[in-house]
């Protein structure tokens, strides 16, 4: 039942993955909201060894002006990896992958934002991957949603995200870099959990229709878990802020 690839056993006979997780377990997730001072909203996410900063600036004026839309906000997103985030140093120049990911992440977040509330303005989302260990676009979406909410931008829902992989025929949640490289499938997924709307869905690998249905349901369940963590992070931040305001009144 195990698969060996370059001396690696990705999943053991009793269903344990390299890091000991079961197929339907996601990595330990830490989320901290409001971590960057200058940004209107921000978040830091650690999902296993994947570490990501997200910052939101906006709503603010659109520069260049001709890109502004008269009846809604323009959402811009930049997904970028630091040169030291990967094993072989990556040039800081945007790669085709980063350009594609910036687009899919933007399209994963936009459905949640009430864009009509801010005509002729821009909401800019910046994502920096500090350390990449698989599922970076999902962790980015987790961080960016929290950053958007912490910026006070009105949202229909938060967006939670989780990837699904396939190792030796077994569907697994939240793939690491090794599981992505040597596994059979990578399916990044994001949804608005309260509205049951999928806002990101990609597949790179071969799956039958029943497997896709199962993968979607596994990912949706994980997203509900992640959603609770996102809400807690925002609540924690609100409590922090309230304390500093109250202390300010006392002095």
């Amino acid at each position, binding site marked *: 039942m195990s698969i060996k690839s370059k001396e690696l056993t990705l999943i053991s006979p009793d269903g344990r993955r390299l890091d000991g997780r079961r197929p339907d377990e996601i990595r330990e997730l830490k989320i901290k909201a409001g971590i960057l001072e200058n940004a209107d909203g921000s978040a830091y996410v650690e999902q296993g060894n994947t570490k990501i900063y997200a910052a939101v600036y906006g709503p603010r004026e659109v520069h260049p002006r001709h890109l502004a839309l008269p009846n809604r906000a323009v959402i811009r997103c930049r997904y970028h990896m630091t040169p030291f985030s990967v094993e072989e140093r990556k040039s800081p120049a945007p790669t*085709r*992958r980063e*350009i*594609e990911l*910036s*687009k*899919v992440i933007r*399209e994963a977040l*936009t*459905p949640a934002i009430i864009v009509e509330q801010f005509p002729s303005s821009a909401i800019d989302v910046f994502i920096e991957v500090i350390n990449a260990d698989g599922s970076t676009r999902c962790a980015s979406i987790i961080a960016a949603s929290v950053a958007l909410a912490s910026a006070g931008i009105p949202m229909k829902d938060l967006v939670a995200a989780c990837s699904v992989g396939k190792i030796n025929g077994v569907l697994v949640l939240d793939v690491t870099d090794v599981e992505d490289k040597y596994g059979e499938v990578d*399916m990044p997924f994001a*949804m*608005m959990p309260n*509205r*049951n*709307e*999928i*806002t*990101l*869905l*990609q*597949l*790179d*690998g*071969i*799956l*039958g*229709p029943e497997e*896709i*249905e199962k993968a*979607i*349901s596994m990912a*949706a369940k994980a997203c509900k878990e992640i959603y609770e963590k996102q809400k807690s992070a925002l609540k924690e931040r609100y409590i922090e802020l309230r304390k500093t305001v109250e202390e300010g009144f006392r002095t």
Partner: protein
Amino acid sequence: MDLLSSGRRVDGRGLEDLRPVEIRCRSVKNAEGSAEVRLGKTLAIAGVKTSIGTPFADTPDMGVMIVNAEFLPIASPTFEPGPPDENAIELARVIDRGLRRAEMIDLKQLCIVPGKAVWEVWIDIHALNHDGNLMDASALAAVAAILTAEVPKAMVNEKGEVTINKSERQRLPIKSIPITVTMAKIGDKLVVDPNLDEEEVADAFLTATFVDDKVCAIQKRGERGLTAEETMKALQIARQKAHELLKTVREVVGGG
């Protein structure tokens, strides 16, 4: 929307009807392979060029495949000159994933001298007229160009030097034929092969690439979401359409 509720689209099509498909192969003499595809009024052309190159370090016995797409001003008043934008990059990468995961070209057979010399297959897609669904037209053009490409033979002499014999041609080693189908969600309706007007009002798109009844690539696009039910329904309809398109490809190309 009222029209859609009665199962018809502005151009008269049913919700699950493709536009008329026309595939013309091998019109570009200087390219090893080429195909022009018309999907209604949308026109895309793909060219295949081969050259000898060095393999990637982690796959010394495999050939190299590169897919590039250009959305140039010739195709639409909305396209600007310059390097590929996010839409062109996304299209190229989605088509690349479909071809690569389906293993359409058997890259192992493109190895000439392991670790030193392999065939590089360059697939360049140019949009010529954008009337919606450049994705499917481009994917079809790429597939048809690859199927009908005639590439030179490479020979290695006793000194290990590689020479190309341009007068002796052979087909690329093909393992499968992936077919890409895009669905658009307009309100609560799903339509196949959106034209330009439909693309402009659509909430979301689901592109899926099929090989042997399984899915090897998916890309959701658009600024709105889809429910899981809509996603599964879209995949189901797309799968049937992929069958139809595969038949058309086989008729035009002859076998494979």
